[in-house]
């Protein structure tokens, strides 16, 4: 069981490394936000699964589960806030289709 837990931990750490490489080498802010999203979702989930497989305590299970749920809930919310700030700041779309501006102009 410890070998499986260790493999899950190494997998999670490798996913964090992949997210870091993506953040360091992407060319656009949107691409960076896309590549950083793997770290708090799949990376932390793998590490928490490894922790729950290795450690023998109910408090450990519950805390790891709470951390995973917290990160899965707050990740998209924070990403949404940041994307809106970036959109208002740049005042330009990446390609020719700007759906948010189109919807806002059709609503008002």
């Amino acid at each position: 069981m410890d070998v499986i837990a260790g493999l899950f931990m190494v997998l999670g750490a490798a996913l964090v490394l992949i997210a870091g490489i993506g953040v360091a080498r992407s060319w656009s802010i949107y691409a960076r936000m896309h590549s950083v999203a793997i770290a708090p979702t799949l990376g932390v989930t793998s590490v928490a699964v490894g922790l729950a497989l290795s450690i023998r305590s109910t408090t450990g299970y519950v805390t790891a589960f709470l951390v995973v749920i917290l990160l899965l809930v707050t990740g998209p919310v924070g990403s949404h806030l940041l994307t809106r700030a970036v959109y208002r700041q740049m005042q330009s779309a990446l390609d020719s289709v700007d759906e948010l501006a189109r919807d806002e102009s059709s609503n008002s």
Partner: protein
Amino acid sequence: MTAFAALAFVLLAGGSVCFLTRLFRGPSIADRVIALDGLLVTVICGIMIEVTREQSITSLDTVLIVALAAFIGTSVLARYAERRSEEGGGD
């Protein structure tokens, strides 16, 4: 377990170096916020791996605090960046 933990720590160190590069180089505030968020996620993974290596859950509650601080920091900095751009500050 110790060998797996050492390998995972090496991988996390590489990831944090990448995040620190983006934190120093990032042209806008949003890039730095993203890099800071990734660094906090790296800290969360490191604490979890350390808990598993030591087989004691005394420092596992820290993970919850760091996760909550990461979300609050991201949202506050996003609101700050949005408000500053609305005032026409540029950057």
